[in-house]
């Protein structure tokens, strides 16, 4: 069973803004029946040029429905310029995260939003010009390159999780790998040349960082943090002192602790509360 967050479950069981806007200013229609999920997104602008109403119709799994529901709340009250800055990562974050295999649902949300804004402006999206790489799911090189750059994707599996490309017959896997290599080298994203760490080395480094930097820093604000366990790339921690009751503790965990761990130890580490 998928490990959906409570926010995902809430938006799936009680989706917000389901429906159609008959006189919508913009409509974005992405996905298809055969591909297993589809989203039709509608918005209506108010007199102030901000999105006054947004609705969706979705065919798909729980995370597709939750992503759509989240998207309608996220765009409400925004200008189109503001709305178009929303990324799939933002949608996933809003939901408290999505299982990695389900990230394509958040991508579908971002694509529908983009398509609806393009529809409003009467322009064509660059996607239609791209080379279709994955025939099973109709994914172009433009889609793949964008996902690689936006979400810092490194492997074929990650590209499949985010875009579905390569998830069908698998014939396009080689081409996807080429695109990953091209995009990453041209973007000058040099793969971290960290020699592979053993578990012991990894845990040691994490412990050192906690003692040397993270704990002293939190202690300055009367807080503290305990390193509970390390399981694969998951770092389990427990907040202590003032941090334990601080409303901003989640931000501390992600924006400070996780960021620091990724910079100093391994960029795939994830901080979780034990």
């Amino acid at each position, binding site marked *: 069973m998928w490990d959906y967050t409570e926010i995902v479950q809430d938006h799936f069981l009680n989706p917000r803004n389901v429906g159609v806007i008959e006189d919508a200013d913009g409509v974005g229609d992405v996905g298809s029946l*055969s591909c297993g999920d589809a989203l039709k997104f509608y918005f209506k602008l108010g007199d102030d040029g901000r999105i006054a109403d947004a609705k969706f*119709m979705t065919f*798909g799994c729980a995370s597709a429905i939750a992503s759509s529901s989240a998207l309608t709340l996220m765009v409400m009250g925004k200008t189109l310029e503001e709305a178009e800055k929303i990324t799939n990562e933002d949608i996933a974050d809003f939901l408290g995260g999505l299982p990695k*295999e389900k990230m394509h649902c958040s991508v579908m949300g971002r694509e529908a939003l983009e398509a609806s804004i393009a529809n409003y402006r009467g322009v064509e999206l660059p996607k239609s010009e791209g080379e279709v790489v994955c025939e099973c799911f109709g994914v172009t090189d433009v889609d793949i390159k964008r996902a690689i750059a936006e979400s810092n994707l490194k492997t074929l599996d990650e590209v499949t999780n985010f875009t579905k490309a390569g998830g069908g017959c698998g014939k396009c896997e080689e081409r996807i790998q080429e695109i990953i290599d091209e995009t990453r080298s041209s973007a000058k994203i040099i793969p971290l040349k960290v020699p592979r760490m053993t578990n012991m080395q990894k845990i040691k480094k994490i412990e050192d960082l906690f003692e040397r930097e993270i704990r002293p820093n939190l202690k300055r604000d009367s807080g503290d943090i305990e390193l509970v366990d390390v399981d694969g790339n998951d770092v389990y921690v427990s907040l202590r002192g003032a941090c334990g009751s601080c409303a901003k503790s989640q931000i501390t965990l992600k924006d400070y602790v996780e960021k620091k761990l990724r910079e100093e130890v391994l960029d795939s580490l994830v901080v979780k509360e034990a």
Partner: protein
Amino acid sequence: MSDPKTIYMDNNATTRVAPEVLEVMMPYFSELYGNPSSMHRFGDQVGKAIEVARGQVADLLGAKPSEIVFTSCGTESDSTAILSALQACPDKRHIVTSRVEHPAVKNLCESLDRLTGHKHTITSLHVESDGTIDLDKFEKSLTEETAIISMMWANNETGVIFPIKKMAAIAKARGILFHTDAVQAVGKVPIDLQDVPVDFLSLSGHKLHGPKGVGVLYVRKGTPYMPFLIGGHQEGGRRGGTENVTGIIGLGKACELAGHMLQTENTVVRSLRDKLENGLLEKVTHTILNGHKEYRLPNTTNVSFEYIEGEAILLHLDQFGICASSGSACTSGSLEPSHVLRAMGVPFTAAHGSIRFSLSVYNTEEEVDFILEKLPPIIANLRAMSPFWEDRDKIAGGGSCSSCGFGK
């Protein structure tokens, strides 16, 4: 919502261990811990209990006790049979199977070249749109090079039954080894191996109210055989490794009970299944039955609710404690819907919205009524938010992903 009572209709995934089965297993976890191979009476009494279980399994299948080899699961039995046949016929590298086999057979066949270092030709026979197989096509697929045929007795997703007796007879006449994965069939339909000339048959304990972690490979007397797990002399040298004593004893009891319950399975369970299936087809429009209505296990129904997606249906059912499964892509972690439904050519409007209910003798009519009450509003609710539901008259099965490679 407080945790609702569980309504378990996912018995093709696994079954509850029958209380009678658990009872006979318990002493072998504690005081009767001897090793069945030991040269003392303390261990030997365990060895004797294993032989009782072997007899119970043989009785259910119409086999001789000496033809029963205990394994760890259905998958091990499948691997053992197929790899054994390939070693027994080293000059033959052709295998005939079907497109709807369980991954235990399907993925093994796809891995054979890598495993054995030899190139194999695999013929995966198509099935008809109702999941049945064409005997003519089957017979024509056999060649002088065919080492083994592996065909499931009954399909786990649809319950569709293959004509194993006829296929095995054709194979026998041609001198080709025949294996059947009967994991879903044993205990649900009568099986008499005196009458059905298969060489190998796989079954699994946890599918018939026995424990997990134990299976059986039936090997007909005289069939060339090579062990898969090589080690000690256990199972007459046919499967090394100390026996899973509690599992084996539980499986023996489960087989005995299954023999007694066959009648109930084919009357009471069948009529509950029919009530559920007919109720759903009646109450919910645009619902399709997947699989042949007659040539089918009595406990299984697989229906597709068009224009919606299976995972969403399952998670709503889960809110009511109802356990079922789906062939939708999203439930598996893969991006494609079930290979079984695709092989049957189920249209995309339906493949993603398939739900399987698989019943057991523990289900009741109240449970069926409860599902018939709860499921239709779930379907209506999900359809109300599906962009394809309102456009359903304009969609002809496939959707707009024109370049899709599915169903080819």
